[in-house]
C-alpha cells in the first residue's frame, strides 16, 4: 500500500525555471526511496515540498490517504533531518529531543522514557545532558535523526544528512540509518547525490535531472539497465558514444558494432567491464594509458577521431601506452531521442 503519493507536482520559483517538473512518485509502507541526481536537479525542493516547507505550484501530495498539499510542516506527519543538522544550540540534547513531545503535551515521565529509548537507538545513551555544540559531527547528525524518530513520523525525510561527514563515518552512519529504518519499518525519502549511498541503501532509486524523473527502479536495475542516456552516464562508469546507425551497424570512427535498429543517430552505452580489448595488427583504437588497481586494471583507449573509451581488464600488464588494439563490446545499450532503443 502506498503511504506517500506525489502526483504531478511542479514547483516554479519566482526566478523562472521549474525546479521540479511534473513529478510523480508512490512510496510503499516501510520503503526507503533515494532521490538521486546532480546538484540543482530539484531533490531538496521536492523533499521540502513533502515536508511542507515549500508549496507546490501545482500537483498534490497525499500521505496515508490525506491530502497534505496545503498543510504547514507542523501539521504533517513527516520528520525531516537536515544536512546542517539544525539542532537548537541553546538547548541540550535532551531538550532538543523533548521539544516536540512537550508540544504534544506528553507527561514528563513518558517524555523521559521515550527520549532515553531513542538515544539508545541511535547509540547515544547517556548523552542527554550534553550541549549540542559539545558533540562531534556524527553525533550531532545522530541527535538530529533521533529528534525526528522520537515523534514516530509516518514519513522520514533526509536531505543529504551525511554530506558534511568524512567518508568513513558516512559509510557507518549509512548502515546504521538503514538498520534503524528497517527495524522501525519507517517509510523514508532520502536525498543524496552520492550514487554509492543510493545504491547501497535504497529499496528503490529515483534518478532526477532538471526537476524531472529520469528513472525509478531498484538499485541493481538502475545500474544494469539505465533507461536514459543521462542515467547511463550518471550511475557508475560508462562509455557513451554518439554515432550513426546504417544498415544494422552502429558506426563511430573505426568502431563498428552490430545494432539492429532503424537508421539514424544513436548513442551507444557500454560499461568498462563489458568492453574487451585485445592486441591487434589491424587496430581500431590505441592505448592511451594503463592503470593497475591490483585487483583489476583500467585501460584508456582513443578511437582514431580521439573519442576516449575505458575498458576494465583482468591483466593490465598485457597492455602498454601507444599499443594498437581491437575492441569488442559484450553488452550494449543504445539510445535515441532520450529513449532506450536497444539493449543486449
Amino acid at each position, binding site marked *: 500500500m502506498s503511504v506517500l503519493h506525489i502526483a504531478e507536482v511542479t514547483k516554479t520559483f519566482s526566478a523562472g525555471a521549474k525546479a521540479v517538473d511534473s513529478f510523480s512518485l508512490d512510496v510503499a509502507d516501510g520503503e526507503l526511496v533515494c532521490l538521486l541526481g546532480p546538484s540543482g536537479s530539484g531533490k531538496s525542493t521536492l523533499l521540502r515540498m513533502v515536508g511542507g516547507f515549500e508549496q507546490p505550484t501545482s500537483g498534490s501530495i497525499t500521505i496515508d490517504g490525506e491530502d497534505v498539499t496545503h498543510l504547514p510542516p507542523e501539521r504533517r506527519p513527516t520528520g525531516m533531518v537536515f544536512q546542517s543538522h539544525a539542532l537548537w544550540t541553546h538547548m541540550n540534547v535532551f531538550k532538543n529531543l523533548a*521539544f516536540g513531545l512537550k*508540544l504534544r503535551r506528553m507527561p514528563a515521565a513518558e517524555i523521559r522514557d521515550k527520549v532515553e529509548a531513542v538515544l539508545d537507538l541511535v547509540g547515544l545513551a547517556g548523552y542527554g545532558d550534553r550541549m549540542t555544540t559539545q558533540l562531534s559531527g556524527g553525533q550531532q547528525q545522530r541527535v538530529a535523526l533521533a529528534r525526528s524518530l522520537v515523534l514516530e513520523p509516518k514519513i522520514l525525510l533526509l536531505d543529504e544528512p551525511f554530506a558534511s561527514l568524512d567518508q568513513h563515518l558516512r559509510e557507518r552512519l549509512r548502515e546504521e540509518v538503514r538498520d534503524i529504518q528497517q527495524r522501525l519499518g519507517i517509510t523514508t525519502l532520502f536525498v543524496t547525490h552520492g550514487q554509492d549511498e543510493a545504491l547501497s541503501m535504497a529499496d528503490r532509486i529515483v534518478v532526477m535531472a532538471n526537476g524531472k524523473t529520469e528513472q525509478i527502479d531498484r538499485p541493481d536495475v538502475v545500474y544494469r539497465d539505465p533507461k536514459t542516456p543521462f542515467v547511463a552516464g550518471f550511475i557508475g562508469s560508462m562509455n557513451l558514444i554518439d554515432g550513426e546507425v546504417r544498415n544494422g551497424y552502429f558506426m563511430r570512427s573505426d568502431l563498428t558494432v552490430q545494432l539492429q535498429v532503424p537508421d539514424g543517430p544513436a548513442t551507444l552505452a557500454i560499461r568498462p567491464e563489458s568492453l574487451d580489448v585485445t592486441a591487434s595488427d589491424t587496430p581500431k583504437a590505441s592505448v592511451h594509458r594503463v592503470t593497475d588497481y591490483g585487483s583489476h586494471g583500467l585501460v584508456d583507449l582513443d578511437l582514431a577521431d580521439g573519442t576516449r573509451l575505458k575498458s576494465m581488464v583482468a591483466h593490465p600488464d598485457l597492455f602498454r601506452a601507444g599499443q594498437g588494439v581491437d575492441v569488442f563490446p559484450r553488452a550494449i545499450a543504445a539510445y535515441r531521442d532520450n529513449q532506450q532503443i536497444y539493449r543486449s
Partner: protein
Amino acid sequence: MSTMTTARGRIDWLGIFFAGLLTIAIVGPLLVVGTWAFTEVWRYPNVIPQQFGFRFWAQTLGRADVWNALMLSLQLTTVVTLLSALICLPAAYAFARMNFPGRNILFFSFLAGHAFPKFGLLVAIAAIFLQLDLIGTFWGVVLIQLVGTLMFMIWIPVAAFQSVDRRMEEAARDVGAGPFRVFWSVTLPQAGPTIAAAVLLSFVGTFYETEGAWLIGAPGIRTMPVLMISFINNQMVIQFGAVLSVLLWVPSFIALMFARRVIGGGAFARGFGG
C-alpha cells in the same frame, strides 16, 4: 622549542603592556574622579589628598534637585528603552525576515538619520516640538531620546535575527511548533544575547544622553547628566561634579551586572559572533 618559549615570552610582554595601557586609559580617569569625590582638601604639590571625607556627598545628596534628576533619569530611560524595544524588535524582525515594498529604503532611512550632524537635526526637531507644545515635557524628551535609540535597536537586532539559522526554525516547525512558538522557543533565544546587548546599549546610551534632553527638556526637565553639566558650568567645585559622576556610574554597574546575569560570558561572545 627555545624559539617557542621566546615567542611566548614576547607576547606576554606585549599583552602586559597593552593591559597596562588600557588600565591607565580606562581606570586612571575613573580613579582620579573617584578620589575627588571623597576629597575635602587636595592642594597642589601633594599626590594624595590631604583630607578625605563625605562632606560633598552629604551636600550633593542633600539637594532635592539631585534626587529629582536621578529619579527622572531612571524613569525616562526605562520608558524610552521599553518603548524602543516594543517598537523596534518587531520592526527588526520584519526587516530581517519579511520582504515588503520599500523595505530597503525604510531600513536605510534609519541609518541616514545618524549620518548627518545630530545637533542640526535636533534643532529642527525642537522647532517642530515647539509647535506641538512638547518642549519642556517628559514625553517630548521621551520622543527625542527614542529617536536616538532607533539605530541600536533596529540595526543590531536585524543582524541578530538574520543570523538565526533558518533551518533551526524549520526544524522546530517540523516537530510541531506553530510560527509563534518557533519565534518564542528558537528565534528569540538564538538572537537573545545580541538583542540583550542592544537593549543594554540603548539603556546606558539613553541615560547619558544630554543633547536632546537639554534642548527639548529645558527648562522643565532636568536629567542627571544635564544637571551635572550645569553644576560644572555654574560653580567650579570639582567635588560636586565628581560626586555626581560617581553617582552616574551606578546605572552602568547595574547594567553590567544585569548583562552578566542575563547573557553570561560564552553566550555573549556567541551572540556577537552570530
